């Protein structure tokens, strides 16, 4: 009886801590949301400024998330499965956009594109500085670092046995990767793509420095918040913030649903079959990325 009570108290105290933390977050966000009326929200949402920044945010985030996901799958895979020369160095460099302030990356990009190599790229390949493509580049670099970490965790948790069996059944290494590894990790890849998209929506620091905040040209939702604050339009800043929060909550909800549907099939799964890389793996390691204007 004693142990049952002790068990219950243990879990109750942890649950209470979780509720308290969620409550504090909700309190802070609610206090911001209370500053605007529903009418204000509707008016702001209809404004050209917010609409163009939403469109640009969605467009750039979609492109960046796609590129980040495509990059993260092979890089996450090799980092999870192989030991190679200077792997620790590659891992350390890949994590810089996470560990260093993202603003640093914006500055580095700006200086890089003023160098000879950067100017050659801008003159002959593509213009990035203070352009929409610059937003995509910033979002890609920052989000890829997160996506690589998520995918690395996924592949760490995914058994390599099905791949090995594919090798004995006639596949070469590429065949096993594309026919077995990728299909097995597909639910997790979808979740990573979703989280990457949400993360891209919130990237701020590097865009501020490298792409600038040119009204109607390189203005995305995260920079709109800053621009509106600077011009004293608090209501518009709050509406842009609320939009990012809605994105964050929606993406997390979709990711959770995806995770649940896979979890359900995992319950009925026999011990015989390999555990597919579940989005849970991603979910456990990823700080909820959506709507972050932390950088």
């Amino acid at each position, binding site marked *: 009886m004693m142990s049952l009570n002790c068990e219950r108290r243990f879990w109750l105290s942890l649950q209470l801590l979780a509720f308290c933390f969620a409550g504090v977050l909700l309190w802070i966000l609610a206090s911001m949301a209370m500053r605007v009326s529903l009418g204000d929200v509707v008016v702001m949402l209809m404004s050209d400024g917010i609409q163009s920044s939403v469109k640009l945010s969605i467009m750039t985030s979609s492109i960046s998330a796609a590129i980040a996901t495509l990059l993260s799958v092979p890089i996450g895979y090799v980092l999870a499965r192989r030991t190679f020369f200077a792997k620790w160095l590659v891992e350390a460099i890949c994590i810089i956009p996470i560990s260093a302030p993202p603003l640093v990356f914006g500055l580095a990009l700006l200086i890089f594109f003023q160098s000879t190599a950067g100017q050659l790229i801008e003159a002959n390949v593509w213009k990035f500085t203070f352009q929409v493509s610059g937003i995509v580049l910033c979002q890609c670099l920052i989000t890829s670092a997160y996506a690589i970490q998520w995918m690395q965790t996924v592949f760490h948790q995914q058994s390599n046995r099905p791949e090995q069996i594919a*090798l004995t059944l006639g596949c070469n290494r590429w065949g096993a990767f594309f026919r*077995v590894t990728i299909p097995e990790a597909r639910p997790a890849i979808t979740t990573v793509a979703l989280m990457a998209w949400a993360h891209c929506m919130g990237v701020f620091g590097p865009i501020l420095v490298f792409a600038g905040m040119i009204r109607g040209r390189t203005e995305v939702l995260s920079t709109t918040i800053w621009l509106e604050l600077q011009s004293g339009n608090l209501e518009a800043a709050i509406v842009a913030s609320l939009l990012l929060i809605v994105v964050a909550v929606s993406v997390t909800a979709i990711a959770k649903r995806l995770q649940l549907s896979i979890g359900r099939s995992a319950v009925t799964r026999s011990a*015989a079959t390999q555990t597919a890389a579940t989005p849970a793996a991603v979910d456990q390691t990823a700080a909820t990325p959506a709507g972050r204007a932390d950088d």
Partner: protein
Amino acid sequence: MIELHQLGIQRGEFCLQGIDLKIPTSAYSSFIGASGTGKTTILECITGLLQPSAGKLLLNGQDCTTMAAADRGIGYVPQDLGLFSWLNVQKNLAFGLNRQKVSADEQRQRTVEVTEALQLADLLKSRVTTLSRGQAQRVALGRVLVMRPKILVLDEPLSSLDAATKNLVTDVLAKFHAKHLCTVLHVTHHEADIDAMCDVRCEIQDGQVICCEK
């Protein structure tokens, strides 16, 4: 024939040195030994999933030490099965046949033969994630048998089967061995299960494999 000459295997901290093993062509061999002695490691080396650090590996007289797993023509059923969880039973069975570009008619014939023998016919459209351990084990075995390999490497394929299914699978293995005259290396902790069909008994002791014909 499976021949290992002074094979050395390094896997992290685990190390095996100077392994010698000879299993004659078409022999059915049991492979026993305590847990953690390196049976699975040796099997993975034979199948080409693990590269030996020293020595030679010959399959049917050919030096296969550095040959890719796909080219060795070995059917391998690991302990953890490695089924393709996003595919149904039928597609799991057909995976290897598709890679080897076996014609549709031939595929159908082989699949029917194996599914009937292993009583999998009713499960063909089921996702492997919905199968019981025993059913999954039969699918993993079927996936290999449809390939008709010359060498069959089995890592405890009877471990989670009830008595009736164990008899069924043992019977299927015996018939397959007799019909296709393949060389079989069968890891087991219950020698009695396959005693009747074994020609060779291999035991791993103190890092060495001792084989004797029965």
